[in-house]
């Protein structure tokens, strides 16, 4: 593993041109996340419909390529999915990024898996794991209606 492999095209692309950047108009849930060590910030906006499906999602924030790519890939991937399914994906991703070899969730498409596995390289860079997980923890916080800003140092 070297940094050329860490910073794959997909990550650079999502990092530079993050999808779903901005503030979706009709959001009904939101949460902020912050990594005090490096200053990365993310603010997630969700529009959950009456069936607990994500109708729209977007984020604002600033941070390194990995955190931006992670937020971009995340938001792309869960759009249209249902709350419980999302919780499963988050759990699966967080386990993979820290310890497990692969993702286990069966509902993910080939393409989704490829994108998520792109981020798996950070496993070799312990100080950067939090960059990859920030958006994911923040999403959980938004879904759970947590009032306080997430501080990533407490988690992971």
């Amino acid at each position: 593993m070297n940094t050329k492999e860490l910073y794959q095209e997909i990550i650079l692309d999502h990092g530079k041109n993050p999808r779903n950047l901005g503030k979706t108009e009709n959001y009904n849930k939101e949460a902020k996340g912050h990594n005090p060590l490096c200053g990365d910030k993310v603010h997630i906006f969700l529009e959950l419909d009456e069936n607990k499906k994500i109708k729209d999602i977007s984020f604002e924030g600033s941070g390194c390529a990995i955190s931006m790519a992670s937020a971009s890939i995340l938001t792309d991937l869960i759009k249209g999915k249902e709350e419980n399914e999302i919780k499963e994906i988050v759990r699966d991703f967080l386990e993979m990024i820290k310890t497990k070899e692969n993702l286990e969730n069966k509902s993910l498409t080939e393409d989704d898996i490829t994108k998520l596995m792109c981020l798996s390289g950070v496993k070799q860079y312990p100080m950067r794991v939090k960059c990859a997980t920030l958006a994911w923890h923040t999403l959980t916080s938004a879904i759970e209606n947590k009032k306080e800003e997430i501080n990533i140092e407490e988690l992971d």
Partner: protein
Amino acid sequence: MNIDNIKSQFPIFSNKVHNNDLVYLDSANSSQKPLVVIDRIYDFYTKEFSNVGRSVHYLAVAATNFYENTRTSVQKYINAKDKNEIVFTKGATEAMNLVANTFGQKYLKEGDEVLLTELEHHSNYVPWHFLRKTKGIKIEFAEVNSDGEITIESIEKKITKKTKLIAFTHLSNVTGAILPVKEITELAHSKGIPVLIDGCQGAPHLKLDMQDLDCDFYAISCHKMYGPTGLGILYAKKKWLEELPPYQGGGGMIGQVKKNDISYGDLPNKYEAGTMATAQVIAFDESIKFLNKIGIENIIKHEKELIDYGQEVLKKNNSVKLVGNPKNKGAVLSFTIEGIHPHDIATILDEDGVAIRAGHHCCQILHDKLGLPATARASLGVYNTKEDIDKLNASINKCKKIFNTK
């Protein structure tokens, strides 16, 4: 590890003092360091040095992991619930100042009482005196009995409706009395009063189990625990660390910093402002490993044998008087010799390589009570032997001879 042969692990003992073998009986002041600890400092500085926490480069990542490993080792050693209940300080003195300052800020007001004991070291009195000066709190002292002990009754007698905290030593650094800390804590908690234990002398010599003790705060001095100088530990229950304000402000302890306001970081960062004693924390992991290898039960057994033997020998020695006679006694033998001042004793013993301490041992309140301006103190560590006690006794006899004392 064989405890009978433990001196060989401490390089200091291959040196001579005034051409004599070193008989080190000043461990209550500061313990000697095993080679593993010294080597760890050396290796860290020569091969791995970096500051912790904030950089993402290789050395910084490694140092941060080592640093946090020590926190986990300490947590396990003292059986704390959470590793974030372990705060590194520059010493036990700072740990107790931290508690007095932050608890004082938040919970103490004029007329409130803090209950100490007459056995307390100045480090567990002066910080409270500051609050007496600035906030008008009152300080009460539970009385020591004629054996140099603090009983549960002496504590109970001084608790009032205004008592807001009880702070006491685990093991007296003068009489060696081991306090009934668990009973005192239970009594205090039954009245809703938190307790701070000064664990300076408890930590190197006794089994530490924060879940069993259930105390609110416990202060440790790492340099008395076979660790490097410039390091201490405050154990505090999470709820206190969350509730209390930070103590020092600076890098690493913040959340967000704006011109008009500042938010603080999470535990334990909130209490670890500025660059910490990185190398010392990392090396202290070796002290814990060293203690674990011998096993605290073996240490307790070994030191008990020595203290019993020491008491026996000194009690037999004419005109030597032991200071205090507690039933439950640890690692400290303080004494006086009729007609010979402790400083003269220390000077004469030193000539034979026998290192003891003379003075009030930062316990003036106790010495006033005993009517002694100073005492001589031989204190033990894991490396001491019966032979050391014999040498102490022989040197005391020389002392008596010089002073024509019988």
